[in-house]
């Protein structure tokens, strides 16, 4: 084995790749060769070091120094200073934002990483890295010391609930499937993470795929399943690639296939890739898609535990649920149950996005308040603006407001407040966001993703979208709010699957907390957040210097005026694109509604 004095981990998450991570990696290799350091410093690829909003990123071990925002041009200097002269380069290091607002109190204990513990720490394409971090030790324990029933009992005691959103106790699902006297039994892993703004599972699959595989093998042993499928969405090509490498390595090590670890237990699995259909995250639709059919949901019962893949008993859990299992077995149910709230144990990963300073991925104990997550962990609102709302739970979730900031994030509290845990997407919105526009936006999404099988969802969401579009378009009518409420109630009661049943949720929650915004749109033809184009007007103020920048940039030539005199926007020509306001150096363009 070759030893290196230093290891450099390059994040090759798609976010960093989009900012040139490969160029930086290549430059690094070249420069290390040029400086004669290539036998001393090893360059490895990994996934997720920091938040990835400031890529490309490197982590240098053993020092644990985190470099961000690098370009290929920075590399020669970095190599010379850090690796040749041994002087870490401050200007490339991550600047940690310290929360100074006294009202928030002292910085709180922030992240607790259980599911994400290995992400960014190990090489996901090397099973030995995972094994070195106690990987597959839980599997050995289960196969060597525990009966399948004892395994289920341990997970029951841990209180682990499904991380896909609904929060059904994982072990109860396993028990139901185990008790069905039919065989063979199948195991599926839902990696069809389709909620906009949610990318927690992607990071786990790309950064620590073996934790998911190990969780699945343990679950298969507990249930008595002989074959499994990881259903991964096609939008995640890197995750599919990483998984396939991991599966092959696990087979080579005798951790998948016949007679695993000499225990007599056999289990194998494969990756099934989706082809772009959100509804396939619903478990019956997912099963149909695995079988090569249209991904349309079926009425339940029968539940997949009784009749799933190929009509056989099937256990379906989410990526994060499986990834928790090895740690529960290894560190014990009591350890897991010591985190979280009375009814929701453990940690949860969240993807924070939108108008928040530190967009990215976090893992926190369940029960942390929204305030802590948005302000302490997320760093607060971007550009010093005001917090307005946070959308939790994806397109079937709801918007919560400033009055909910001290609400603990757990399954029951969120549902009670009109949102839901969902898979973990958190979209933060500042005071320049129009809530009617957001509701329209989510409805457009669900309407588009409705599979069309049942009428309430197919037609109902379309009618709701039409009403929302006309409200945003300045043509809202008296009675529209009531029509939305009636349709919402009907669609939720009569739709076949969770997609339709949850589709009206964004409208219901925004109507509950921001009804005045709907009323302003309909009765006053005004958009309070100044977002909905048909309801806003751009005008040039008297402090215009006549520099002509706006006139030159206007795509429709709606701005006229002489040099050094106040310009005028022709409202009949203006398309309200807002470019004039962006380019004006004197804040002389005003938007009103």
């Amino acid at each position, binding site marked *: 084995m070759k030893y290196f004095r230093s290891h450099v981990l390059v994040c090759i998450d798609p976010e960093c790749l989009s*900012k040139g991570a490969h160029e930086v990696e290549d430059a690094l290799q070249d420069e290390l060769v040029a400086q004669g350091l290539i036998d001393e410093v090893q360059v490895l690829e990994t996934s997720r070091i920091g938040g990835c909003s400031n890529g490309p990123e490197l982590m240098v071990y053993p020092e644990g120094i985190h470099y961000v925002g690098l370009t290929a041009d920075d590399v020669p200097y970095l190599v010379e200073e850090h690796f040749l002269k041994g002087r870490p380069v401050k200007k490339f290091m991550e600047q940690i934002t310290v929360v100074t607002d006294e009202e928030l109190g002292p910085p709180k204990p922030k992240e607790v990483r259980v599911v994400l513990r290995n992400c960014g720490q190990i090489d996901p394409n090397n099973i030995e890295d995972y094994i070195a971090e106690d990987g597959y030790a839980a599997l050995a324990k289960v196969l060597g010391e525990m009966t399948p029933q004892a395994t289920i009992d341990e997970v029951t005691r841990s209180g682990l609930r499904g991380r896909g959103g609904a929060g059904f106790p994982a072990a109860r699902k396993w028990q139901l499937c185990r008790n069905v006297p039919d065989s063979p039994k199948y195991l599926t892993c839902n990696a069809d993470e389709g909620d906009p703004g949610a990318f927690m599972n992607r990071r786990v699959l790309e950064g620590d795929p073996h934790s998911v595989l190990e969780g699945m093998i343990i679950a298969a042993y507990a249930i008595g399943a002989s074959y499994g499928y990881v259903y991964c969405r096609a939008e995640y090509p890197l995750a599919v690639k990483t998984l396939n490498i991991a599966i092959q390595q696990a087979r080579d090590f005798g951790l998948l296939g016949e007679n695993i670890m000499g225990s007599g237990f056999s289990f194998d699995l494969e990756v099934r890739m989706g082809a772009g259909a959100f509804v396939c995250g619903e478990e019956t639709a997912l099963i149909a898609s695995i079988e090569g059919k249209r991904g349309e949901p079926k009425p339940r019962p029968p539940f997949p535990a009784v009749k799933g893949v190929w009509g056989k008993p099937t256990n379906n859990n989410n990526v994060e649920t499986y990834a928790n299992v090895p740690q529960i077995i290894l560190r014990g149910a009591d350890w897991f149950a010591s985190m979280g709230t009375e009814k929701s144990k453990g940690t949860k990963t969240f993807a924070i996005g*939108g108008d928040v300073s530190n967009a990215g991925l976090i893992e926190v104990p369940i029960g942390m308040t929204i305030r802590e997550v948005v302000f302490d962990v997320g760093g607060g609102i971007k550009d010093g603006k005001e917090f307005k709302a946070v959308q939790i739970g994806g397109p079937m979730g709801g918007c919560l407001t400033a009055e909910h900031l001290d609400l603990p994030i757990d399954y029951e509290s969120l549902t009670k407040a009109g949102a839901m845990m969902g898979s973990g997407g958190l979209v933060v919105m500042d005071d320049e966001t129009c809530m009617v526009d957001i509701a329209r936006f989510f409805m457009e999404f669900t309407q588009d993703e409705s599979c069309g099988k049942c009428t309430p969802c197919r037609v109902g969401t379309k009618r709701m979208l039409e009403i929302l579009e006309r409200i945003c378009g300045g043509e809202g009518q008296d009675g529209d709010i009531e029509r939305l409420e009636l349709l919402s109630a009907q669609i939720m009661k009569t739709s076949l699957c969770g997609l339709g049943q949850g589709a009206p949720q964004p409208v219901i929650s925004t109507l509950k907390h921001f009804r005045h915004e709907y009323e302003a749109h309909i009765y006053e033809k005004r958009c309070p957040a100044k977002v909905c184009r048909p309801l806003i007007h751009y005008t040039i103020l008297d402090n215009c210097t006549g520099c002509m920048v706006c006139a030159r940039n206007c795509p429709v030539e709606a701005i006229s005026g002489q040099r050094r005199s106040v310009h005028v926007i022709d409202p009949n020509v203006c398309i309200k694109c807002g470019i004039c306001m962006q380019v004006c150096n004197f804040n002389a363009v005003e938007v009103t509604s």
Partner: protein
Amino acid sequence: MTVAVKNGKDAMQVVRTAVVHHGATRDELIPILTDINHELGYIPHEAVDEVSRLIGMPKSQLYSVASFYDMLSLKPRGRHVIKFCENAPCHVVGGRQVWQALHDALHVKPGETTPDGRFTLLTTSCIGVCAVGPVVVIDDDVHGNVEPEQVAEILARYE
């Protein structure tokens, strides 16, 4: 049987390779169609006929599956496929302005191809790189933190 040539590739050969690789069973239908779509840019009708013959499945069922999934296209696409992420995290950080810039540069509606066959403009479901929104994917390249002014320069990289 006529041999159709698409994108410089023999469509029938592409179909046979995909079927042999995945196996001629109906549960492999989605991987088979995905491969064909990837190789040829879309799924021509001749390819549907051939898959139907090889795996012994009615054409109606093949069309039912091919038309259901967003990533499978039964219509020819341009040399480069632009996928714009229109989801909430990108939307709230300025995605709408980027969409407008794309629209102004290409003059096509979503789902349409430019007359010169260079670009097809599509919207995509969230690809999960929300920390660098707004995001535009062209072919297999992900472009993050896109500003409206950068659109022309990014498009110029694709001939």
